[in-house]
């Protein structure tokens, strides 16, 4: 990335020691060699040993099996959040990341409530707000969860009075989450974070456009699903909905996401496969976060570390699910190539 394209990073002395710690922690993130070692492990014990070497050992006791990988990964991620919470001067960075799970839990509870289903399997333990408090608010026993979630509950309930499409619950909560992190970004006052959010919104919107076209769903769904706050205007994306796939790709090639369109557009165009584009989008965001490397004191490296951890967990899940379910190693390797090049 050219230096001129880098954005201004603020110097914040409160993060001086945290950034030092993060630089050490970053060295322990599993890279390609570790992932390949895990991929080529011949037994469950060997897989556990590899995980143990990279900081997952404390969540693996004698009785635990690799089949419990979800709880191992979840516990490891929780520890990373707690670590960042402790290290960060304020708790805002960790809270922003964990709030994703609070919004997710609220979404699951609202949908389960609407359909009379059991929400338990859909609930995440990584959120910051206790699920019991959300349940109390939804059942009318309590009044408030948190200002940003209370607004969502009100909006969703108001919507459900007229219509009862559970998909809209997801769409409304997703939009509310983006609103929340955008506001938080303004509160923190870091341009780096603002741009990160708008890039994530853009990439989500582009993928949504492609997915909805592939499903041959109606335009209204796209209108409802597009998230606000991206660098690409939603009106442009709506116009592209009526154009051909080639037009969409050539329009993307004229944006800052040209590299994604060039590398993964072909698969989508010819096979209708969007997964490569999705992984390339993740890499794009991580590439953007790479700018945090030049920050010696500020919240950016902390945020970058958490996102790298997310990626690590994502790749571990791909390998573990694949190996447990006997997916051909070549197929898993192919997916890793997208992440590591």
């Amino acid at each position, binding site marked *: 990335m050219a230096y001129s394209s880098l954005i201004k990073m603020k110097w914040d002395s409160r993060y001086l020691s945290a950034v030092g710690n993060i630089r050490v922690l970053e060295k322990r993130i599993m890279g390609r060699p570790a992932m390949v070692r895990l991929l080529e492990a011949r037994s469950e014990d060997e897989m556990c040993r590899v995980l143990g070497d990279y900081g997952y050992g404390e969540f693996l006791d004698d009785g635990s099996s690799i089949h419990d990988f979800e709880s191992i990964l979840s516990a490891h991620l929780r520890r990373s959040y707690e670590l960042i919470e402790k290290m960060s001067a304020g708790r805002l960075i960790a809270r922003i990341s964990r709030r994703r799970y609070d919004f997710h839990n609220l979404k*699951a509870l609202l949908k389960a409530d609407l359909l009379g289903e059991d929400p338990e*399997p859909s*609930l995440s333990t990584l959120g910051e707000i206790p699920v019991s408090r959300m349940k109390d608010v939804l059942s009318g026993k309590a009044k408030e969860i948190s200002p940003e979630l209370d607004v969502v509950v009100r909006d969703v309930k108001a919507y459900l009075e007229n219509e009862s499409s559970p*998909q809209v619950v997801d769409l409304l909560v997703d939009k509310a989450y983006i609103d929340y992190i955008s506001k938080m970004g303004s509160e923190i006052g870091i341009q780096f974070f603002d741009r990160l959010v708008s890039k994530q919104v853009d990439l989500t919107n582009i*993928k949504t456009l492609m997915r909805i076209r592939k499903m041959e769903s109606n335009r209204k769904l796209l209108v409802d699903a597009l998230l606000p706050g991206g660098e690409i205007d939603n009106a442009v994306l709506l116009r592209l909905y009526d154009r051909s796939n080639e037009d969409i790709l050539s329009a993307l090639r004229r944006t800052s996401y040209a590299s994604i369109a060039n590398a993964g557009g072909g698969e989508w165009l010819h096979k209708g496969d969007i997964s490569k584009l999705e992984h390339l989008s993740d890499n794009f965001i991580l590439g953007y976060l790479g700018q945090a490397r030049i920050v010696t004191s500020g919240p950016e490296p902390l945020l970058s570390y958490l996102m790298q951890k997310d990626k690590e967990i994502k790749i571990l*899940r791909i390998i573990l*699910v*694949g190996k447990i379910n006997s997916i051909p190693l070549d197929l898993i390797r192919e997916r890793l190539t997208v992440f590591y090049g």
Partner: protein
Amino acid sequence: MQQQVSATRMELMNYKKRLVLAKRGHKLLKDKRDEMMRQFMILIQDYRDLRNKVEAALSGAFQGFIVARSGMANEFLEEALLTSKDKISMTVSKGNIMNIKIPKLSLEYKGDIIGYGFSETSGDLDYSLKLFADALPLMVRLSEKEKAIQLLAVDIEKTRRRVNALEHVMVPSLEDALHQIVLRLGEIERSALTRLMKVKDIVRKH
């Protein structure tokens, strides 16, 4: 087994009629069984082809689902699949093969199979659900064929028993009875003739 039959000309005629009827019934049932077998074999072939298609479709769908699962945390996947927007209704009507009532199933889709948001889900999940949705009509057709085969098999078995009963029990026993009547009538005729000759001889001597 020897049957108790009364050896009269009337009975002979009755048995002859019954034998003709049994042989005709046997031929008809045998033809019915053969045609049912032919239909059965066609159904079996269709069923095999369809089963291969269903297995391939489901295996692709499950593999796609595992790939989708590997890209998402379990809770996120569970949440996404908590609901579906589409409504499927199935209507059952009756079809007919060789006078056997078989079920005809038809599916009707309304809405979209994707009932979740797009931010936390992946295109792989859309794809695997699409594969499952594509497999469903095949599975319904497979179950329709399977039921038809089951019903046809029961009827073939029933017809086969009837054919066997006619061929190995009814027709031989009727033939046997006829044979006995013919023998008995012949014996009666011979004894009457002997009696007549004896009477004639006595009359001549006097």
